[in-house]
């Protein structure tokens, strides 16, 4: 550990000595930010090496010895992806109040997760989400199907993250997007492979600290520099929002300016803060549907659920959610500050069209913040993506090696073979994700929200009913899952067709009511209803499952 600290110290020293200017919004190689980014990536790999997994228990569940606060930090880091760090501000920058649906959706789901599932999941004592489903519904087929669903969710989620990594590497290094994705994926793959979840958990705690520090420092500077209440920027920016709504007239004598010398001024823009403003093209229904889908998706994401297996007791699982949510909220309270300042600082048409997903970094640049701090911010964005990707790769590879290979294909596999299969799955998934990310199929936020809706339609109903109603049986679960997958298939078919420029029957109707990032608003209730009806009509859940639920999960 001492060696790691010394290496890091030397790297940071080098950063400050050789830092260069980073004022160009795009295109150039930015030495200071690049050194910061490389230092942080080296730190991740070293920490991964130091805390690497020794056996399958370590690999899947970090030896079940992580503290509540530590687990909370890991939950937050695991959760705060490129979508939170970069995409959240982008959504509010582009569509104002509509973007807050994502803020509420991505935090409110934790309340459901806590009160309905966290403690019970830990008490059930399984390693992975498909493990729980296969066991609870006494079905190898369901285990295999949910493993495939878990892998699909992980892939969909990862593709968005790799997009974010690509964007930040492109910004820092001025390299091609393709190379940025290749380099980023190679590094995240290396340390996930070396460390497994034990290393990942430690990494996640370090990543959380880096993410939150890098995110908060520019906010204090921006609010101080532009004369707002800077002691708590998350409150101080309220006046920024009001100023955007009412407009800030340009002063006669230049006073506050952005890095291009434009006045800190904006014409009245109420569309930024008013609810479901017609100018944004977003509606009340979409706000509600997105919030609801993201919330239930939160409670159904395998890599989130899996975090509860790493704490010693159910009580710790519950408290780790409280800590996790608190740590998450620190970032979610702060993200709108970037979008509000970004709105004013980029108000001059000379700035041109900015990539929304990079607005956090652009805002810091336009606010003329020291390039090193902007570099740290970009590194924070990469950390956010890395921490989530590593958790997703572990969840996806666990689903493959544990739930598909060990439980279905080769039950006699020894722990060594299982670990080898987990690593093989990690490599395979990373390659698939890297390839998909290069295709630039959709925006970060779109792909991530899609993963939420998929989880909300499939995994969430199985967990909810599996824990709280012993009457839910195998046939009910299969039918419910089929309905959830059917709704998913319809939504995705229309989404892909739309992207390809094709028009299917009732295209605009289906695209609106079953949008790719909020189809769970109807998919999840239908899946739950189907599960209940079919379960009621078919034979009861076996006694041993009911007994297990009573004695182990609800005792």
């Amino acid at each position: 550990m001492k060696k790691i600290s010394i290496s890091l110290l030397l790297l940071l020293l080098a950063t400050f000595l050789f830092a260069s200017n980073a004022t160009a919004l795009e295109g150039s190689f930015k030495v200071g930010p690049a050194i910061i980014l490389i230092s942080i990536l080296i730190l991740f790999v070293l920490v991964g090496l130091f805390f690497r997994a020794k056996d399958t228990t370590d690999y899947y569940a970090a030896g079940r010895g992580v503290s509540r606060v530590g687990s909370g930090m890991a939950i937050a880091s695991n959760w705060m992806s490129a979508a939170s760090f970069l995409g959240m501000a982008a959504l509010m920058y582009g569509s104002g109040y509509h973007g807050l649906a994502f803020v509420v959706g991505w935090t409110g789901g934790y309340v459901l997760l806590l009160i309905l599932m966290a403690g019970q999941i830990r008490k059930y004592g399984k390693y992975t989400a498909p493990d729980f489903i296969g066991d609870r519904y006494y079905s190898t087929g369901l285990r295999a199907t949910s493993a495939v669903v878990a892998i699909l969710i992980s892939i969909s989620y990862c593709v968005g993250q790799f997009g974010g990594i690509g964007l930040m590497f492109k910004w820092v290094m001025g390299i091609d997007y393709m190379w940025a994705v290749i380099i980023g994926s190679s590094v995240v793959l290396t340390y996930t492979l070396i460390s497994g979840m034990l290393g990942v958990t430690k990494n996640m705690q370090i990543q959380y600290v880096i993410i939150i520090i890098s995110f908060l420092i520019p906010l204090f500077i921006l609010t101080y520099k532009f004369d707002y209440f800077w002691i708590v920027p998350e409150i101080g920016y309220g006046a920024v929002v009001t100023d955007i709504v009412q407009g800030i007239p340009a002063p006669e004598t230049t006073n506050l300016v952005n890095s291009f010398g434009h006045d800190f001024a904006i014409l009245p823009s109420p569309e930024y803060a008013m609810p479901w403003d017609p100018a944004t093209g977003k509606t009340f229904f979409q706000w509600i549907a997105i919030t609801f889908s993201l919330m239930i998706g939160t409670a159904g994401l395998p890599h989130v659920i899996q975090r509860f297996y790493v704490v010693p007791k159910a009580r710790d699982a519950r408290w780790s959610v409280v800590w996790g949510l608190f740590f998450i909220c620190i970032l979610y309270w702060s993200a709108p500050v970037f979008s509000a300042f970004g709105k004013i600082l980029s108000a001059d048409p000379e700035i041109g069209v900015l990539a929304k997903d990079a607005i956090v970094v652009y805002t810091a640049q336009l606010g003329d913040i020291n390039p090193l701090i902007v570099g740290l911010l970009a590194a924070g964005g990469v950390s956010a993506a890395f921490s989530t990707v590593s958790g997703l790769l572990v969840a996806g590879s666990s689903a493959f090696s544990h739930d598909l290979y060990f439980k279905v294909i080769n039950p006699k596999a020894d722990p060594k073979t299982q670990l080898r299969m987990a690593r093989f799955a990690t490599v395979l998934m990373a390659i698939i994700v890297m390839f998909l990310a290069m295709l630039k199929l959709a925006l970060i936020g779109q792909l991530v929200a899609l993963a939420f809706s998929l989880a909300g339609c499939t995994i969430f109903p199985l967990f909810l009913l599996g824990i709280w109603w012993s009457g839910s049986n195998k046939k009910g679960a299969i039918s419910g899952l089929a309905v959830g997958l059917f709704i998913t298939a319809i939504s995705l078919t229309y989404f892909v067709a739309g992207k390809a420029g094709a028009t299917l029957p009732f295209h605009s109707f289906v695209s609106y009511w079953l949008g790719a990032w909020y189809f769970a608003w109807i998919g999840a209730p239908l899946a739950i209803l189907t599960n209940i009806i079919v379960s009621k009509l078919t034979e009861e859940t076996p006694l041993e499952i009911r007994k297990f639920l009573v004695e182990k999960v609800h005792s």
Partner: protein
Amino acid sequence: MISKKNKEKQVEKKNDYRISFFKPTTALSRTNRNLVVLLVIIWAVAIFGFQILLRVMQKPVPESSLKTFEKVWKNVELGMATQEEKVDFANSVLSVLGKSVLISDPGNRTVLINAVSSTVYDLIPEEGKEIFRKEIADFEKKKENIRSLQDNEYLQAKANIIDRIAPLLNLKPYSLKAKLLPLVISAAEMEVFQPENKEKLPNIMKLYLIHNRSVLTDTNFLGFPFHYFYTAIFLLVMFVALCWIYCFLIDRVHTKLGTNEKS
């Protein structure tokens, strides 16, 4: 305590080990059910109830620019507008062109650029029209070729255009709308205000200048519009508080019933 536990076990056996959230059989599950139901109600009402309230109370409120636009539009459309009306018209269109949200819709932007360019051109005295058109065309070329926004020639040309047009529109040269002018006036869109653009303009103006407002959006709280504070700040505080309350109370219940989990 032990006899209570045994009693509950016997109830479960009698019930043949059936679990249902809505039909709890033990003191623990009953307390948990009540707590969960209460928290879910608070959670749902706070999130969705407030948004529904916001939706119910909202009224479409136009910006002052739209009112100005509607006052002069008929005459502008018929080509009968006075100088003052043309100035008011150009100013109202500029207030939409300055909104960065427009960037996402190039079609609407083209209509607005045509409207403001043709009106400004119309306001230029006859003898200066040709020089003005050339000045704008030269500036557009410069804008395409500059490497930095701080380029001296570019800045000078921009300042010249502002100095020439701002007084015509009763704008101070340092004002935002004046600074917007060189960037939105197009030499290609000056001659005619196209009939198809005239047809589209009123709807575009309404789209960008009417907003859903109510007492909830117009009340200021800690500097925020109240609804924004509620959604962006308060709801998140409430989520953490709900989680904390649940953990605290359920821990107390476990201690009281002696059902704490062993390490």
